[in-house]
């Protein structure tokens, strides 16, 4: 299991929103696969992490859920981004970038001149 990471609290919501933004409406399995692939399999998502997060986003009104036929004729619950979700994604992405820049600046290999 070396090299595998746990999903940090708060980042999972962002990943789900981004996935739905890029791929359009998608079922839970699809979201999980996409996140794992994007992370080059460094992240694994078990159901106990993924489904509560989906439910939370739904409760907050950022995504909607609906039962549909999948491409290979299977019934699955599809999640889709709402307008509020799109706004939330933009906001969170911006905040994340700022934080990442800040941390990167801090961690840059630079020696203080005495």
């Amino acid at each position, binding site marked *: 299991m070396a090299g595998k990471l746990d999903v940090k609290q708060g980042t999972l919501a962002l990943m789900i929103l981004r996935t739905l933004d890029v791929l359009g409406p998608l079922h839970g399995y699809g979201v999980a696969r996409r996140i794992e692939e994007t992370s080059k399999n460094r992240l694994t998502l078990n*159901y106990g992490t993924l*489904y*509560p997060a989906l439910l939370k986003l739904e409760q907050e009104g950022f995504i909607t859920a609906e039962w549909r036929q999948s491409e290979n004729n299977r019934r699955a619950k599809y999640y889709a981004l709402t307008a509020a979700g799109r706004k939330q994604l933009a906001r969170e992405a911006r905040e994340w970038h700022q934080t990442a820049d800040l941390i990167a600046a801090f961690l840059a290999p630079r020696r203080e001149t005495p």
Partner: protein
Amino acid sequence: MRHLRAAFARIAGFFTGHHADDDLRDELQAHLEMETAENIRRGLQPEEARRRAALASGGLTQAAEAVRAQRGLPWLESVAADIRYALRALRHSPAFTAVVVITLALGIGANTAIFSVVRGVLLKSLPHRDGDRLMYLRQSADGPGQANISFSVPEVRDLREGAKSLAGIAEYSPFSFTLQGEKQAVRIDVGLVTGNYFEVMGLSPALGRLTRPSDDGPGVPPVMVLTHDYWMRRFGGDSSIVGKQLRVEDRSVTVIGVLQPAPFFPDRIDALLNMVVSPHHVSAMMVQNRSHRMTEVVARLAAGATVEQARTEVAAVHARMQSEFRGVYNADSHYRVEVIPFKEALGERARMTLWLLMGAAAFVMIISAANVVNLTLMRGVRRGHELVVRAALGAGVARLRRLLLVENLVLTLMGAVVGVIIAIGGVRLLVSLAARYSPRANEIQLDATVLAFALALSVTLAMLLSFVASLPKEGSIASLISAGVLRVSGSLRKQRLQRALVVAQIAVSVVLLAGAGLLTRTMIHLSEVNTGLRTEEVLAMEVPLLQLGGSPGTGTDLAAWFKNLLASDAVAKQSYERMQRELQALPGVTEVGVGSTIPLRGSSMRLEVKAENKPPAVGTAAPRADFRSANPEYFRAAGIPLRRGRDFTATDRQGSGKVVIINQMLADTFFPGEDPIGKRIAWTGEILKFSPISGDWRTIVGVVGNTQDGGQDAKPRPVMFMPFAQELAMAAVLVIRTDSNASALAAVATRVVRRVAPTAPIENVLTIKQVKDQSVAPRRLNAALISLFGALAVIIAAVGIAGVLAFSVSARTNEIGIRMSLGADGGRVQRMILKEGGVLLAVGLVLGVAGAFFAAGVIRGLLFGVAPHDPMTLIGVAATMGVIGIGACWIPAVRAAHIDPAITMRS
């Protein structure tokens, strides 16, 4: 917005959980299948593909649980589960539940009921505006009947000028008037007030207007404000009464308004009028004479002033008055004025009794709480095993604590609900008790505050119960499991706690029983006091015919008013003679008398007396006697024994020589060791100047026995009887003696009187037995309530001691079995258990008797004829508790003696 929305979604989720569960299962199942299919597509065997997919899922059940936690309100859901569990557990031990709920209900019920009375009568803020700044002024002096002598108008004037810390001083003169109804007249209790009275009291009208300063003085129309209570009672809340004219004391009076509900002091009243209604109140003698005291005084503290400042100022003003008018204030009588917050004055008579009852109720609460703690501890020991299993399955200490708390809350709240139901019944009973002590009795109610009090009691108790139970500590679980907790009988510390609780229960019960014993003995002593009357089969009724108010035309012309009065007095006396004759003719009536006052009731007129050639003793207050009148048949009818001399006769009439009959008490005051017959005695004092009573010398012709006019517990008062024919018939009572049941005569006697005087008020139709009962009724209720609490305490304590011993026996079954198989017989085992209980009982009794010894001093004021530390009572109480306690120990002891060693050793 986003959080609000999420919260709503969760609340909705809490209610729609079941449907969503199916949905979730389908979704997770779909996920699993898609992953399995993908694995197969990658070339895995179906079996392996399914296994890997399942592995990656992290467990469907856990996932479902995590989603459920997100969906609804997990905390609430688990509390709901705890409550369901608690109810199930309690249903499985119905005996335990019933005992706890009943015990708690008794404790909570008693406390809630008494607290609602204490709150209504003593604690609640007054309905008056800024009621805390309202003061009652009381002037008193040494001597009997001088505890509240009220004020004269000049005294009030001095206070107004001198005491600047009192912003307003209002006068209030209680009086009794005749109100002419459509058919018959009734007597009403009224207050004659100055125009600033309502402003000072901080009261508003419920309807119409109240009196104001322009209603003061002699030349204004008489007006009347009805109290809310009387308006509802007599006029059924009819608002058209405002503006109507009523006939009061033969004068026409306009009703100007209805007052908001408010308590009055010293007594409940029906209406308030301006002073002009009573010619006497606006007369020169009333307004100018310093010793003519008819006025109660209320005052309002000035802004920024304190009660202490007011007291100092009032004392200074009063000291100035005393030095300036030495003739009015006999220095030996020690005149003084108190400034008392109005709220305290209202609660004065009730305070002692109510706090006593509150204390007794608190004791019952302590005992029942101790019992419940004990029962819970015992149950906790039996449940130790269950708690350890729960802990082993992963429940944390906090979680277990919460489970216990929920369970205890369910228990205590059930107790509270039953308790409040008991309290509702109790309050009804207590209101009638409180009405005897307090003008605020109608403010008693089981309101939100009182219910909050009951709730607070039960929640506190539940928390206490949850924390005395010891829980398996984290880390110690393994050792507990290996120890096999089924055999644990509770730690030594816990057993000590149980024993201490039993001792406390017994001690507190003894204290309560001692109180009950003392009050009951007081009752017995009181009922044994000789009333002084020979018989109780006597019916009395008040029929006042004479009205004091003149006709409106006469105004303040006092001479004319007095002439009128004498004329109507003569007419009234003829009516009484007719009533007497007609009543005498009724079957069963043996004697009918007429007098001023009901036997065994005190006269409201109490004046200074002097005897010829007996100079008053220096350094003591002037002697006083009750003013009463009687016709020749009165003493025989009432059963008052003539000790010396003669009865009044028909020749003792208006114009003949003035004669009196005195009672033994007055004879002893002036003529100890002498024969008073033929000696002369007279009324005296400043007050005679303003009354129709003459200060002439009167010859004593007889001495009658003392009667308990001030109540069964009071010293007999000195009384001087005038011939009914020689005085104004200001008040009149018919006294009818029968040869059988007096109360059966009431209806027919009332009819006879009504025939003679169709419109007269007929009041207080009472048998002498009823009069006597009324005087002891408050004490009887006190004694009954405390005895009830005492009995409750003893029962609960007996259950407590029996329960603890029974538990001890069941925990020691094994040990007892061993003892018996080693040769101890049943008797020895029984003695062993009895000894265990006996020690607890003995310690409790000793502590209880010591406690009662201290506590009894508190109720000294409520006792009569029995000392607070009456050894007979204490011994009796200890013996009673001892016998009941031993009885309670007997059952578990006998059970222990019947333990079969063969069975116990094998199990």
